[in-house]
């Protein structure tokens, strides 16, 4: 093995603190090191060229650059390796700038010692590096959009227009979603159906969109680029090709049931069209209520009723219609499965379902639409109250979030009621009871003001209860006007509950099928709240609309277009490159115990025919969490192998003197390592006894590795990772906490203070917290003294038994 080592001055940044010459001279004598050079700027054109020439001239097979952070110049030197004809995974960087020179500037001697040791650690690590290949996979342009509300329609149209093949799946008989049920839309008061229906029509004419209505996803396997989707088309019993929506069937149908599209304020037949502007525009039979279908289920009789069939001029009714099952090959998925409204029955104090005068906002919406169509609807009376935040901002029912749209929809409904009353020359007295009015969108505050201008009264207070006095037609509402500090108790003809939004039942089902996480508010979770707001933790799956959280139409549409753009960005490349940082198995070490199978939250590990564990390389995220489950070290992680990390720890402790303390710090790449770089940049100094070792996730650090660190002489071990809510690795923080607990327990057995191991979840702005915690570890190490040799031997001898007690039986 031939290793070339380069120590960088960084134009004085390093060399003014660290004696780089001394470092180079020291490591020059190490095994396998052909030479160790020091140079002013390794990242410069000259520095890079020097490496390329040396590799060729000296046949170097490993290169170590002791300079700045690999997060800063890692890619630069990877390219250098490629130019030199060296596998890019055989070049490594050691960080003696951010983690040494910049944070130990007041102790030049110690800083030089540390830089030397860090470089030694690098040498011992790189000795175990293997050449690795980046993984490339071809992908197509087929996209599944689940849910055809306004968000799904928008995403499908964007993708279809861009030439992507879209399968748009909708569980209902028509597309359009919740927006189709709205009367008008704020803040412009334009008719929802009028602006939505052209888009719905576009879906059917776009040649790149295949529409699957009345269909459900039953199963999704695979990953980005090769999803296998199972789909069921429910039977409509009416042929959509030949149905001309003449409506004769519905006229003939003797069954009348509540119309769910109309929020049950009116009736429909058992053969019906979901709405006037339904897409596809065809009738269907409701199997639950159709007399023929009921008889079939009950007694097998097939000759009951069939009146619709008799009158249909197109002969398109087929009572024998069966479900169809489809399999689709999909490259990426967009979830736009939306929300349900809060079930107002869960706030019994408001009497919804008990008193007829208490409505929910969507019912009021339909009453307004039906009335404008001239239909006979219930009289809402003169004096009307709106109650805001029903099912939102309420810990009593478990929804702490603001539903974001209710302030505006109550305002809109008030305006529409006021408006139609003015037209009819009637009088309305409307009160909106709110906790906070949130009219933050473009044009919303102006809309709110125009509503106030119409005479709608806004009262700040959350009503406590609604009740009816015996004999009264009206309902009573009790509330504190918190601006007036007085109780109001007053009768109303109608009270409208502004119900909040919750994740729809359909969305919950899809989330389970796709195995995508939900956030604490119950909605689907985005990968990052700021920078990846429409991605999910699973590659190739995106979310938009109210499934991600309550939002209005403009936001849903914007998000939908964002998912389309994200999908295009991903699929347009034709192929995807993946880091070779994947878990793998040393088959010769695997004894087939199978413990690892359940350890992976992404289900990537299985046992093959020979009972040897195998890792699905396409799906592995490379966190390394699974490694802790293996008692025989058969599971391993590329780029961060057991050997590499063990060698690094060993090297970190080999120059330790009797008087020295040493703290091994395992830092995850995403938060803690990045933070340590920022701490270096800010020159916030901390204990020179620390040795930071980079890992992909602290869940990669097995309890065994921590205990080994103590056995090798570490005085303390510190693990840092992202906060649970921001780590991209499912379950990793829980896994670390479990590991730490286990380690602490075992340290106690030997009489070592468990305080010597700590774990902290960082956010990358904790520039003072990081040094503070490391200094605390140093204090602990100093106060507790050196761990006696016999205790270290005890750890070394017992760790296998502690960590895998069952092993004794095998």
């Amino acid at each position, binding site marked *: 093995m031939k290793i070339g080592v380069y120590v960088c001055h960084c134009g004085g940044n390093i060399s003014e603190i660290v004696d780089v010459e001394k470092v180079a001279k020291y490591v020059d004598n190490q095994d396998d090191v052909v030479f160790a050079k020091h140079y002013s700027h390794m990242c410069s054109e000259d520095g890079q060229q020097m490496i390329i020439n040396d590799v060729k001239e000296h046949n170097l097979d490993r290169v170590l650059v002791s300079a700045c952070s690999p997060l800063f110049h890692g890619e630069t030197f990877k390219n250098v390796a490629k130019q030199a004809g060296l596998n890019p995974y055989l070049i490594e960087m050691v960080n003696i700038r951010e983690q040494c020179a910049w944070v130990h500037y007041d102790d030049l001697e110690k800083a030089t010692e540390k830089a030397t040791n860090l470089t030694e650690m690098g040498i011992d690590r790189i000795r175990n590096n293997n050449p690795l290949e980046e993984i490339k996979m071809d992908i197509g342009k087929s996209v599944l959009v689940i849910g055809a509300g306004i968000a799904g329609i928008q995403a499908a149209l964007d993708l279809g227009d861009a030439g992507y093949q879209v399968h748009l799946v909708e569980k209902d008989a028509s597309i359009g979603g919740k927006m189709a049920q709205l009367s008008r839309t704020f803040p412009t008061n334009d008719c929802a159906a009028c602006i939505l229906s052209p888009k719905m029509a576009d879906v059917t004419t776009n040649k790149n969109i295949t529409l699957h209505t009345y269909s459900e996803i039953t199963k999704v396997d695979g990953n980005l680029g090769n999803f296998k989707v199972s789909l069921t088309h429910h039977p409509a019993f009416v042929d959509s090709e030949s149905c001309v929506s003449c409506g004769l069937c519905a006229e003939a149908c003797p069954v009348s049931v509540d119309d769910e599209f109309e929020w049950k304020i009116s009736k429909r037949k058992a053969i019906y069209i979901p709405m006037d502007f339904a897409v596809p525009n065809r009738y269907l039979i409701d199997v639950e209520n159709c007399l023929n279908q009921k008889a079939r289920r009950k007694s097998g009789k097939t000759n009951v009723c069939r009146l619709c069939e008799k009158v249909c001029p197109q002969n398109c009714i087929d009572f024998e219609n069966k479900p169809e099952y489809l399999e689709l090959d999909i490259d990426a998925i967009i979830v736009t499965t939306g929300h349900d409204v809060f079930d107002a029955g869960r706030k019994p*104090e408001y009497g919804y379902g008990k008193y007829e005068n208490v409505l929910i906002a969507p019912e009021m919406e339909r009453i307004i639409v039906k009335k404008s169509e001239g239909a006979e609807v219930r009289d809402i009376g003169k004096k009307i109250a709106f109650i805001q935040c029903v099912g939102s901002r309420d810990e009593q029912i478990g929804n702490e979030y603001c539903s974001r749209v209710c302030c505006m929809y109550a305002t809109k409904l008030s305006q529409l009621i006021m408006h139609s009353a003015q037209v009819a020359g009637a009088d309305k007295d409307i009160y909106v009871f709110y906790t906070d009015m949130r009219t933050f969108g473009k044009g919303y505050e102006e809309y709110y003001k125009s509503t106030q201008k119409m005479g709608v009264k806004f009262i700040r*207070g*959350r009503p*406590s*209860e609604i009740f009816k006095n015996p004999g009264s037609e009206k309902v009573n509402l*009790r*509330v*504190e006007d*918190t601006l007036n*500090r007085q109780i109001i108790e007053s009768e109303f003809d109608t009270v409208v509950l502004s119900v909040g939004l919750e994740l729809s039942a359909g969305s919950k089902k899809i989330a389970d099928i796709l195995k995508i996480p939900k956030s604490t508010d119950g909605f689907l979770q985005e990968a990052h709240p700021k920078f990846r707001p429409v991605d999910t933790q699973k590659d190739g799956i995106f979310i938009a609309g109210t499934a991600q959280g309550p939002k209005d139409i403009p936001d849903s549409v914007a998000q939908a277009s964002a998912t389309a753009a994200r999908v295009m960005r991903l699929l347009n490349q034709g192929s995807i490159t993946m880091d070779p940082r994947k878990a793998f198995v040393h088959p010769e070490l695997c004894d087939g115990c199978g413990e690892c199978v359940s350890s992976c939250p992404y289900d990537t590990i299985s046992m093959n025919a020979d009972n040897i564990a195998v890792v699905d390389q396409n799906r592995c995220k490379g966190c390394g969490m699974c490694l802790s489950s293996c008692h025989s070290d058969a599971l391993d992680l590329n780029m961060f192998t057991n050997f590499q990390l063990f060698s690094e720890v060993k090297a970190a402790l080999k120059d330790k003197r009797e008087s020295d303390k040493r703290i091994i710090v395992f830092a995850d790449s995403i938060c803690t390592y990045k933070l340590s770089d920022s701490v270096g940049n800010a020159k916030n100094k901390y204990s020179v006894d620390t040795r930071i070792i980079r890992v992909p996730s602290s869940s990669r650090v097995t309890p065994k590795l921590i205990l080994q660190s103590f056995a090798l002489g570490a005085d303390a071990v510190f693990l840092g990772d992202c906060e649970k809510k921001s780590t991209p690795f499912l379950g990793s923080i829980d896994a670390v906490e479990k590991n730490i607990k286990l380690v602490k327990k075992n340290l106690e057995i030997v009489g070592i203070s468990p305080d010597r191991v700590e774990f902290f979840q960082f956010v990358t702005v904790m520039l003072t917290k990081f040094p503070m915690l490391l200094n605390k570890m140093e204090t602990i190490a100093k106060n507790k003294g050196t761990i006696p040799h016999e205790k270290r031997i005890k750890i070394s001898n017992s760790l296998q038994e502690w960590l895998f007690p069952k092993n004794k039986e095998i």
Partner: protein
Amino acid sequence: MLKTIRLEDENTQFLKKVESISGEIITVCDQCGVCSGSCPFTDDMDITPANMMRKVQLGQSDVLETETIWICASCLRCMARCPRGLDLSKVAEALRQINLRTAINHIKVEDISPEEAKRLPAIAYVGAFRKLTG
């Protein structure tokens, strides 16, 4: 006459004291007023329950002189409905305790007429003296 409120350190100290005795984080009160609407005794109070919370939030110790804190009988209607999960009965209790711990009792045995004393059930005595005396 309106009195100007000064937000001094002692106001925050008062808030902290009430939070400590009650065990409730009073600053999360949203002032939605659902407590006041739920309270069966607002007609007998001088300030609404939500107003009591507001005064504590701002450290207005004149809340100790209100009738409201003595009228709250811990029926918990407000607590069962508070959207922020607060228990106002604990806040009222803390405010009563701050008064009672100065060794001033809110009721006296000698104020109860002999015939009433005979008529009243034991449960009323124990309850009232627990709540209204130090």
